[in-house]
């Protein structure tokens, strides 16, 4: 069979860059295959996908050598429009790529541009909407849809073209775990029913592997590091060496000293052959220790009987009660739109609750203004670009103090001290535009930290970050939590973050608090996980399948084990980001 995509000795350099982003790529993808491309940020995986859909070189010009053929043709000759007939791309940003004012129009967009007659167009839209299960939403505006629905509309929008190749750029980045699972399932169905070639670019490997993939291609520094079947790849240490997170059960098996082989089928924990490993896992479990949970007494933020709704008929939050202790790291989790952000908006005073009280150090704060609360409770938004308003790092961090009228000398001292804590001191006079995303994030955290808050609330602190940057941001937050005793609340749907970095998780589903427990207990509880659109951790399945009843204890021991490994290598890491 002829490959549908073939890179031969392909090298590409963006016009604006000195070094090539892809070097000597040799890759063949065959019709009907499902290929996962993984790699850390800046590895060249996005460039590779842009080469396939024609954004390179048409929207992002540059120089290439070697050859690339797609469906037997040269993309350069087809142009971006010709390419769009062969390759359908679903981008990461579910909002940004929703062009139409309604679902139907968005699906029809490509057909409109092709001047298809209205009658044919209506029929085609119906047909495709059926496939991705949005037929009953055709007249809805994007604001009425959930993230998962928007993504399915985007899939429909490229399926109308009967493309041979579907390209997904980080399809899971903005979805909660259960919705992500559904998306992967949908992609799988499309591949099976229409025999489409599927390429998925994603660093959340474990979630993609929820359904079989034929091959995984690992990219780093512009080169292909590995191109293997999943079973084979998971038996090696390639992922770890390239800074990509392995599925948790794989890490656990490796910690237990198991020598994985591809014939045990490690791709799915549910049907992996574990018999040879069970004993080792149990032995490891018995010898591993867990962290002794710290007992914290002093309440810093207490929420009592909180109710909130925009309209009377539809309550957003109902009777929320919980107590956050000083120095805790807490996660608020739940499906998209469950009311997590509303809760943080209520805490910060952006909205007023219909009922209930919020206490800071046992004092009711209902009468405090947004600004007054802001001095105690800092809020860091998901996207740093939504907070940064000064061109220079120093000015950005100093802004809050200047507005408050703090004397110049004191501002300087406090800003410098904060920048040192955040590892940004040597950049203090740099323009912010020269920083990476992770560094910008750190600037926004610094600009909150400088105000000496007692609590910092972070909205999705690690969304869209690869494993290395994720670890960097989270270790940094842990550090300020430990060193400065600041209580940290994180709103997230990243199950790894919740497991690895928080002491406690508050689970919100359909406006109600349904659990308030340790993350390991929550993620091994099927009922709660389902209700809140979370995903049970694969460590649970591993524990159960190895005959370990106390799955949550198993998870705790695993997390502690990993923590120790991280703190051993942390010295290097600190040097890395100073």
């Amino acid at each position, binding site marked *: 069979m002829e490959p549908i995509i073939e890179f031969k000795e392909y090298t590409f350099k963006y016009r604006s860059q000195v070094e090539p982003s892809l070097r000597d790529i040799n890759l063949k993808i065959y019709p009907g295959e499902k290929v996962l491309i993984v790699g850390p940020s800046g590895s060249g995986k996005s460039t590779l996908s842009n080469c396939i*859909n*024609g*954004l390179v070189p*048409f*929207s992002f010009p540059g120089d290439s050598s070697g050859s690339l053929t797609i469906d037997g043709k040269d993309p350069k000759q087809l142009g*971006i*429009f010709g390419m*769009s007939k062969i390759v359908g*791309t679903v*981008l990461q*940003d579910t*909002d*940004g*790529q929703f*062009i*139409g*004012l*309604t679902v*139907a*129009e968005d699906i*029809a*967009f*490509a*057909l*409109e*541009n*092709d*001047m298809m007659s*209205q009658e044919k*167009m*209506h029929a085609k*839209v119906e047909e495709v909407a059926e496939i991705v299960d949005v037929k009953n939403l055709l007249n809805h505006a*994007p*604001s009425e849809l959930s993230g998962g629905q928007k993504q399915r509309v985007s899939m429909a929008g*490229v399926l109308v*073209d009967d493309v041979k190749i579907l390209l997904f750029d980080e399809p899971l980045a903005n979805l909660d775990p259960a919705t992500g699972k559904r998306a992967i399932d949908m992609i799988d169905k499309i591949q099976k029913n229409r025999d489409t070639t599927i390429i998925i670019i994603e660093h959340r490997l474990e979630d993609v592997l929820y359904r079989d993939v034929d091959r995984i291609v690992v990219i780093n520094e512009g080169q292909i590091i590995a191109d293997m079947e999943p079973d084979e790849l998971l038996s090696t240490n390639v992922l770890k060496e390239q800074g990509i997170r392995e599925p948790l059960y794989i890490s656990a098996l490796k910690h237990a000293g198991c020598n994985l082989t591809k014939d045990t089928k490690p791709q799915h924990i549910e049907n992996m052959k574990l018999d040879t490993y069970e004993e080792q896992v149990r032995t490891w479990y018995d010898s591993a220790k867990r962290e002794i949970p710290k007992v914290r007494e002093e309440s810093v933020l207490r929420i009592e009987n909180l109710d909130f709704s925009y309209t009377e008929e539809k309550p957003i939050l109902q009777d929320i009660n919980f107590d956050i202790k000083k120095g805790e790291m807490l996660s608020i989790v739940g499906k998209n739109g469950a009311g997590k952000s509303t809760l943080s*908006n209520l805490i*910060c*005073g952006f909205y007023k609750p219909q009922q209930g009280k919020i206490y800071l150090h046992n004092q009711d704060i209902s009468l405090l*203004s*947004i*600004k007054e609360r*802001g*001095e105690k*409770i*800092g*809020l860091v938004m998901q*996207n740093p*670009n*939504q*907070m*940064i*308003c*000064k061109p220079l790092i120093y000015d950005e961090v100093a*802004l*809050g103090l200047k*507005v408050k009228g703090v004397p110049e000398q004191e501002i300087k001292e406090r800003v410098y001290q904060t920048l040192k804590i955040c590892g940004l001191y040597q950049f203090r006079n740099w323009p912010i535009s020269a920083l990476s995303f992770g560094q910008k994030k750190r600037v926004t955290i610094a*600009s*909150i930290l400088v*105000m000496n808050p007692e609590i910092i609330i972070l909205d999705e602190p690690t969304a869209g970050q690869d494993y290395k940057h994720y670890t960097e941001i989270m270790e940094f937050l842990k550090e300020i939590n430990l060193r400065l005793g600041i209580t940290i609340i994180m709103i997230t749907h990243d199950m790894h973050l919740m497991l690895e970095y928080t002491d406690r998780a508050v689970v919100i589903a359909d406006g109600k608090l349904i659990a308030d427990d340790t993350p390991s207990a929550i993620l091994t509880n099927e009922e709660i996980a389902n209700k809140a659109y979370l995903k049970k951790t694969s460590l649970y399945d591993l524990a159960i399948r190895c005959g370990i009843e106390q799955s949550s204890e198993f998870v705790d021991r695993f997390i502690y084990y990993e923590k120790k490994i991280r703190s051993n290598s942390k010295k290097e890491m600190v040097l890395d980001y100073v």
Partner: protein
Amino acid sequence: MLSYDTRVLVVMVVFSLVIFYMSKTKWKQVGAVFNMIMIFLLLNIIAVFIFSPYQGVKIYGSRTDLFHIIGPYTMTAEQLFYEGNMILKYFTIIPAALMFFVTTDPSEFAASLNKVGIHYNIGYAIAIALRYIPDVQGDFTKIKHAQEARGIEMSGKASLISRIKNVAAIIFPLIFSSMSRIDTISNAMELRGFGKHKKRTWYYARPLKRNDYLTIGVVVIFAIIGLFITFHNGSRFYNPF
């Protein structure tokens, strides 16, 4: 458009109100916009009086003083009549404009603009602006809240000058996040073939039906009658003085 003829205007106001009533537009949908228009109307008639208190006298060629106000300002019957006509003229347009906002689907509007020969780029620019207004509004609120929490006061408590300064703290992040949005949109549009051909079709385009042709016909007849009256009288104004 041209006529200030009171008789024509009165007829048009009546027609306009009848159509507005028939369209079953709810006050709730248009109330805020209507109030805004009223404020502008008020500003408009006051400004006309301040800058040109004797415009009416000039137009109608007579002067009937009613009462003296201050300095060079004397209220004349002609000026009152002239400004009254202005208000009437506003009211001929307001119901139609409000109805247009409420009843026109932006997608259909974009399609129709294209149909009457305007390039689809322009129609689509309007449609997509409408598509992203709620998103940008959402961004605006989020950014404003976050900056307020940092102590940048935007409410009435801060002085006007510091509020204007503080607006920058919202505007810059808003511009930057909108810019990256634009990047994504334009890539997404291009990947799906926008701009491939000189023409495009529209999912929501509607063919003109009998009633549409009838409406166009009535509009043309109205325009001709209006023009006829204007030229017949030899003036855009009806002069009772």
